[in-house]
């Protein structure tokens, strides 16, 4: 019974997003569709374990959800003393292609440029990731009430301003796709500090985009990037503590994902031979690390060359900072420190201070501890700060007396 219940719950969850996508199209309202699908899911969880799973579970959920939506619309119309708008019929046997299109339309609706990026990420997590408002709030590190307000506002704007539920035309696609890709990558990064369910959802969205736009370098590069980073996940944490790339057990990496990611990098580069796509280039950097048998054997020349390519299309201080970390490995810490110190406007960026701390430590400078304190003050995640601190203290035992720990 329990295992049957589990199987049903899994099935309902898998089908839920697809049914939601179709119902948003039919009703034109994310709120109404969510309510109706939730109701249908509850009914399914009540009846399926007892009566057996219907032959067409998705069709069953669609019909049940539509019935609920019609009821809600009728009740609301009656309350306002109006005629209910006729709701378009839905096909309980939708073909897989139109379902995939519904999902894609939902992705583009959630990631519409008329919504703030905050709202885009939240809405995509909520509707496409199937996370509860509380989970989304936790994942994005905001209070639940704030998140609830943000989601309500986003859904209201979709309904009142009539944000269209459609896949943009091919001429608009490049500009829209970049927003969608940025949202998916943000979702992935939110999960990077240990929230694996967020990463799984981001990868699912990236796969969806790549399968629906197999010729778009951004879609290919995004999928490659998240797969090549996710491949290291089995070795990234030991007993809950993050493990640096240099110290990871590479035999634990997922080589199936690495293979798939590397092929996608190739496909992405073939489609953009002259000006590579930034996601493809970042994926190429990740591939350099994933394909190296050990940290010491990393081809730093290749890594730095890819960073130079990335700088030619996306010259930001953060990219320069990451490039400097590779320069430290090839040319030594003082060459890298000169590059890092030459970067303006990163005084509020914890990873800039953490990089300085790391390089100063390697140079044997006591200023390393001050840099780490600044990194903590500007928001370096606790686990990373503790790890860096522990290493600096163990390699510099005479510094222990300074009572460095209290700032964390």
């Amino acid at each position: 019974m329990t295992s049957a219940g589990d199987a049903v719950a899994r099935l309902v969850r898998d089908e839920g997003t697809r049914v939601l996508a179709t119902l948003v199209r039919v009703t034109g309202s994310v709120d109404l569709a969510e309510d109706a699908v939730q109701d249908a899911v509850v009914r399914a969880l009540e009846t399926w374990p007892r009566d057996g799973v219907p032959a067409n579970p998705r069709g069953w959920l669609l019909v049940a959800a539509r019935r609920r939506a019609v009821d809600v619309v009728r009740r609301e119309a009656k309350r306002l003393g109006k005629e209910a708008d006729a709701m378009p019929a839905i096909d309980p046997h939708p073909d897989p292609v139109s379902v995939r299109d519904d999902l894609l339309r939902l992705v583009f609706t959630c990631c519409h440029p008329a919504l703030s990026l905050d709202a885009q990420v939240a809405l995509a997590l909520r509707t496409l990731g199937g996370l509860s408002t509380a989970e989304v709030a936790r994942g994005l590190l905001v209070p639940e009430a704030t998140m609830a307000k943000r989601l309500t506002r986003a859904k209201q704007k979709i309904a009142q301003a009539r944000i269209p539920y459609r896949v943009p035309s091919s001429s608009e696609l490049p500009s829209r796709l970049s927003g969608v890709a940025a949202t998916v990558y943000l979702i992935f990064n939110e999960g990077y500090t240990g929230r694996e369910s967020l990463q799984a959802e981001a990868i699912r969205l990236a796969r969806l985009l790549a399968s629906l736009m197999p010729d778009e370098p951004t879609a290919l590069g995004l999928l490659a990037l998240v797969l090549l980073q996710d491949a290291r996940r089995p070795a990234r944490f030991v007993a809950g503590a993050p493990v640096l790339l240099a110290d990871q057990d590479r035999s634990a990496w997922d080589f199936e994902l690495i293979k798939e990611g590397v092929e996608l990098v190739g496909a992405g580069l073939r489609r953009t031979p002259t000006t590579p796509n930034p996601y493809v280039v970042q994926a190429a950097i990740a591939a350099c690390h994933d394909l190296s048998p050990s940290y010491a054997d990393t081809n730093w020349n290749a890594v730095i060359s890819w960073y130079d390519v990335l700088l030619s299309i996306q010259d930001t201080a953060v990219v320069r900072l990451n490039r400097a970390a590779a320069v430290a490995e090839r040319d030594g810490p003082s060459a890298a420190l000169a590059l890092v110190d030459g970067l303006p406007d990163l005084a509020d960026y914890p990873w800039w201070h953490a990089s300085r701390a790391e390089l100063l430590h390697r140079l044997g400078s006591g200023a390393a501890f001050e840099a780490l304190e600044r990194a903590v003050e500007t928001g370096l995640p606790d686990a990373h700060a503790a790890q860096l601190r522990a290493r600096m203290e163990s390699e510099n035992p005479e510094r222990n007396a300074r009572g460095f720990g209290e700032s964390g």
Partner: protein
Amino acid sequence: MPQYAAIIYASDVDPTRPEAADMMKDYNEFHDGAQAVIRGGAALYPTATATTVRVTGGKGGDIVTSDGPYAETKEALTGFYLLECADLDEAVKRAAQIPGAWDGAIEVRPVVDFGK
């Protein structure tokens, strides 16, 4: 079909003055191209002529009038159009054709349809 107010925030000029002739040429071009969706609209006199009205204490409360526009920034509310478009994407596309969007900004706001 939904309607949108395209509210124009641009540099504060009096469109009835002769020096605004060039600008009006661009607006006339916009009119010719967007005739199918324009349902109304108006150009406004400069912000110096504006009065802001507030009612303190809610409905029926004291009327407080003050000189000047509601929020003064580099750009000012210089006019608006009422556009009838299929959805926000079309409204945004049209708004981007309004000359004020080129050196100012257009706020696109859905209009409430009380008849529905």
